[in-house]
């Protein structure tokens, strides 16, 4: 468990953060650029002091301003992957990795070979940092942080300085890391797609404050999220299980709550657990069971909440047998349909609306 409760003022910027993260697990620190995410993890790493507050990891106090405890970063055993990689330019790739390994004080949860294998660093070992692409640099930086045998790995927007193609070169390795090593991670990001793919837990930040935290499904329903990700990215994230594969393996039927959702199957097998985001703008609401439509996904549920959304639109929460779905419809349509809490409705989602980057295997 990582427990953080800190305050820090820097000029006009005030950070006031409080959250707890279960370990192991991947937690995303999510918020717009400049909302204090980096400042916060620098405090967790110890590179920056706090005005007041405390940081504890698995019961060990790392910072407590009241008791005047401040463990220096070199003694915290917290790995840090910086946005700009920060490989040592005077050392080769292998020497950069060994630098961390030698200072791990004999601990060896992950070995050199294992890390090199996991991140496919073999062909890079003989090179110098200047000869690496941005994505390769980040992979080496992740490997170096891992070889420090950290108890917690902090990743400060490791993909932010990469273009989309390079990002795709690194993301799968981060997923592998999460699935194969039981190392707790805090992943800082302002890209919700990355959070959806990597995180199990989300801490939402806005203007220097932690505004909400919880499982990713729970967070996806938070109204605060709209201001951070933008109205178009609002949508419930639900977990489900693949019930079957149709159309010669191209489509998968995913059971969510009491309904079934057909999505494009990307190497999915029956029984696989998946997490999917259904964007609110892609959901149509009907008050009678619809027929003669091309839409493959018709989920029956009950309205459990109506909230004002962007101008002239409302956000309808629909409970589909335990799985929540959000739908954005115009206020006029809501009035015409006479929607109210407890009403029985059908939510319609086009299969093609669920893009591959909104779907993830668990």
């Amino acid at each position, binding site marked *: 468990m990582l427990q953080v409760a800190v305050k820090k003022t820097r000029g006009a910027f005030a950070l006031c953060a409080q959250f707890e993260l279960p370990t192991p697990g991947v937690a995303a620190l999510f918020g717009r650029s400049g909302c204090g995410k980096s400042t916060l993890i620098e405090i967790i790493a110890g590179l920056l002091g706090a005005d007041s507050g405390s940081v504890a990891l698995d019961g060990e106090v790392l910072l407590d301003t009241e008791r005047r405890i401040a463990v220096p970063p070199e*003694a915290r055993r917290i790995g840090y992957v910086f946005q700009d990689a920060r490989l040592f330019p005077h050392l080769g790739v292998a020497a950069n990795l060994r630098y*961390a390994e030698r200072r791990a004080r004999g601990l060896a949860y992950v070995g050199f070979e294992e890390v090199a294998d996991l991140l496919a660093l073999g062909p890079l070992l003989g090179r110098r940092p200047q000869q690496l692409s941005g994505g390769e640099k980040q992979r080496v930086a992740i490997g170096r942080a891992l070889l420090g045998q950290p108890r917690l790995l902090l990743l400060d927007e490791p993909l932010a300085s990469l273009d989309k193609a390079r990002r795709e070169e690194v993301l799968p390795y981060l997923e592998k890391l999460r699935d194969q090593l039981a190392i707790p991670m805090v992943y800082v990001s302002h890209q919700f797609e990355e959070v959806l793919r990597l995180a199990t837990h989300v801490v939402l930040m806005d203007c220097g404050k932690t505004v909400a935290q919880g499982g990713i499904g729970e967070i996806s329903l938070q109204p605060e999220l709209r201001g951070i990700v933008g109205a178009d990215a609002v949508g419930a994230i639900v977990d489900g299980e693949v019930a079957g594969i149709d159309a010669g393996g191209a489509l998968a039927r995913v059971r969510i709550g009491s309904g079934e959702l057909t999505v494009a199957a990307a190497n999915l097998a029956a029984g696989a657990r998946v997490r999917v985001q259904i964007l609110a703008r892609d959901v149509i609401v009907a008050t009678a069971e619809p027929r003669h439509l091309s839409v493959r996904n018709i989920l029956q549920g009950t309205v459990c909440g109506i909230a004002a959304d962007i101008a002239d639109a409302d956000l309808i929460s629909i409970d589909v047998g335990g799985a929540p779905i959000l739908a954005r419809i115009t206020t006029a349509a809501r009035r015409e349909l006479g929607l109210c809490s407890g009403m029985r409705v059908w939510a319609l989602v086009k299969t093609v609306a669920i893009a591959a980057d909104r779907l993830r295997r668990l």
Partner: protein
Amino acid sequence: MNWLHPAEREALWLSLEVSLRSVCLCLPPAVLIAWLLTRRRFPGRTLLDAFVHLPLVLPPVAVGYVLLIVFGMRGVLGGWLHRTFGIDLIFTRNGAALATAVMTLPIMVRSMRISLENVDRGLEDAARTLGAGPLDRFATITLPLMLPGILAGTITAFSAGLGEFGAVITFVSNIPGETRTLPLALYTALQTPGGNAAAARLACISFALGLGGLLLAEWFARRVRRMLGR
């Protein structure tokens, strides 16, 4: 070097020796001072900065005079060094090396400071998160990364040290074979009737050494920079 008179050859070797000793003497404090001035904020920092750079603006003779007072036989430090270690600085090549060191210290410190200011502190932070303590970080990250400045500063200081005149002649006098370095020999030749040819030869050597040193410093700095990928 048969075209050189034995006394001139002696002056050349003595200059090289004195300058080498001076550089060795200067190097550790220069690194420390450069680091203090760049990385630390402490009371008296501006004063230290000014003090180190003083030899650049003071008449060298004044520096030699101060050394004479402090390190002379009856000086505070000079007496103590003589009694405790049996080290005499006055009228010796060690004294010449000390005077040269004081005069070339600002050159070294300047060059190292520029280099240190270009060292990305983020790299030191990265080393910190990997478990490197302060000394470890300094030795494995900071020092190697400021190497271009250290090398350039050392070579420039060595070249400049070959020609140090005022402070040397004031502090340790002009003793043939002990403290008569190149510039002192050149000065002596000019004062001697018929010494014009010798003065010309010595001037040529000084010129060649100075130019060679500066070129070497630049070449080294460029090589190291390329090695560091900058």
